[in-house]
């Protein structure tokens, strides 16, 4: 178990002695009357410098609680703009912020919450070129990102700079939280030496997130960050906290420092930042290879052929809950069930397969071609493109 922190929340005492104004004493009175924080802890908070990477679902409660608690300097890194699908969980933003850069909306909100603190904004994508430079001025790094390349980058940069990395990640209704990069504690690579290969990341059929989940996980990250700063309690070091919101259950697993870790082990082989996109493989929703190799039909062509009265059989390979959102009246067989239910299809008829964006249905077309179907087309761009090009009344999701 790691010893209690000597995190450099107290920067070299060369600056003028810090104190709280009368207004600050009132603002933080519920901290000050609690001995675990008290004046000493509140002054540590005021002197602390925390970098929040990502201002989305995890970064929102994190930023709000750190600002509210009086963390003196908060850095925000994000390059995204607010869109309406963010509002279901990213509680830093309001409807009026849709279309604004997240950094601008987030810093406005935090400055409104607490005008006494400094907010640094980095409207950029964290990369191997800028990470060390951005991270170096902060005491604690908090990882609220949403992709593997950035997570390995944040981990490696934190370890190379000797800074704790408060980690949280989420998937649908399940979260993981821990503190990496602590002296003698494990790092992300000790837990997971490598990311999943691109082909095994969940498809959009399995995506989504319960809106409150990042709120809970991000709040736990905030609690750990505040504890590290004031040096109170037991930090979540060497422990991986798992949270399942459906079962409403927390579990804790032991997390050990791996002596063979290529980054923080006894004989490290990673001594500088690497190319993280290459390390994690090229990934993303639009895997180009299968999509270009299957026969396609555009939404406009499909509409024209249906209007002509051509005999086309529409096959929808999405999940039943997606069918309920919107559909083209097709026959529903989820991609995962296709091999078992292929006998429901008539190979003598011409079939047009579709999904949401065209990726799953491309897989379905490939599968059916291998199964001997000859007259099979993939609806290019899926139901999203149908909504854009043919029927705007079909909702997009």
């Amino acid at each position, binding site marked *: 178990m790691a010893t209690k922190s000597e995190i450099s929340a107290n920067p070299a005492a060369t600056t003028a002695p810090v104190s709280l104004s009368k207004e600050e004493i009132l603002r933080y009175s519920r901290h000050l009357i609690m001995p675990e924080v008290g004046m000493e802890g509140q002054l540590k908070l005021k002197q602390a410098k925390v970098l929040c990477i990502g201002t*989305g*679902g*995890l970064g929102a409660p994190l930023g709000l609680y750190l600002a509210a608690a009086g963390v003196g300097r908060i850095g925000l890194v994000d390059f995204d703009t607010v869109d309406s*699908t963010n509002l279901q*969980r990213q509680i830093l933003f309001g409807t009026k912020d849709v279309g604004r850069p997240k950094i601008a909306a987030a810093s406005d909100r935090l400055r409104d919450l607490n005008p006494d603190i400094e907010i640094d904004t980095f409207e950029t994508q964290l990369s191997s070129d800028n990470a060390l430079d951005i991270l170096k001025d902060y005491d604690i790094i908090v990882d*609220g*990102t*949403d*992709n*593997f390349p950035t*997570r390995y980058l944040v981990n490696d940069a934190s370890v190379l700079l000797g800074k704790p990395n408060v980690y*949280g*990640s*989420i*998937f*649908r*209704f*399940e979260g*993981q939280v821990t503190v990496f990069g602590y002296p003698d504690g494990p790092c992300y690579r000790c*837990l*997971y*030496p*490598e*990311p*999943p290969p691109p082909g*095994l*990341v*969940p498809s*959009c*059929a*399995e*995506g*989504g*997130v319960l809106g409150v989940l*990042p709120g809970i996980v991000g709040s736990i990250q905030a609690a750990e960050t505040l504890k590290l700063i004031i040096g109170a309690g037991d930090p979540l070091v060497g422990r*991986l906290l*798992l949270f*399942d919101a459906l*079962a409403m259950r927390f*579990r*804790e*697993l*032991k*997390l*050990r420092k*791996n002596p063979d870790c290529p980054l923080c082990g006894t004989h490290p082989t990673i001594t500088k930042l690497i190319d993280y996109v290459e390390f994690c493989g090229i990934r993303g*929703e639009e895997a180009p290879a299968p999509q270009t190799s299957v026969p396609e039909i555009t939404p406009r062509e499909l509409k024209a052929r249906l209007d002509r009265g051509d005999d086309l059989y529409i096959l929808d390979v999405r999940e039943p809950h997606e069918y309920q959102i919107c559909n083209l009246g097709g026959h529903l067989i989820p991609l*995962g069930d296709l091999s078992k239910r292929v006998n429901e299809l008539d190979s003598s008829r011409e079939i047009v397969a579709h999904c949401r*964006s065209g990726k799953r249905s491309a897989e379905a077309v490939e599968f059916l071609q291998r199964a001997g179907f000859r007259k099979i087309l993939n609806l290019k761009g899926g139901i999203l493109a149908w909504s854009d090009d043919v029927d705007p009344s079909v909702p997009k999701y």
Partner: protein
Amino acid sequence: MPVKVIIPTPLRAYAGKQESVELQANNVAEALNGLTLRFGDLKKHLYSDDGKLRSFVNVYVNDEDIRYLQKDQTQLRDGDIVSIVPSIAGGAHN
């Protein structure tokens, strides 16, 4: 030994949507083997082509990582809980 294997959210789609599976196994290898026999689709998510447990999937017996026990030869006792814990990146995925 009767043991329980907890299936993580990202892998439930390949395990009949179940949260956990009860099965008989004397060690971790038997437990995972029993699981992939029952749910064939799980196999490629747990093992690489050379038959090794994937490096973004960790397996725990109760709260201990099997990498620091006897790996897949870790013995199981009656009522042990085997957890499969893959890395998740977070975010809402599009």
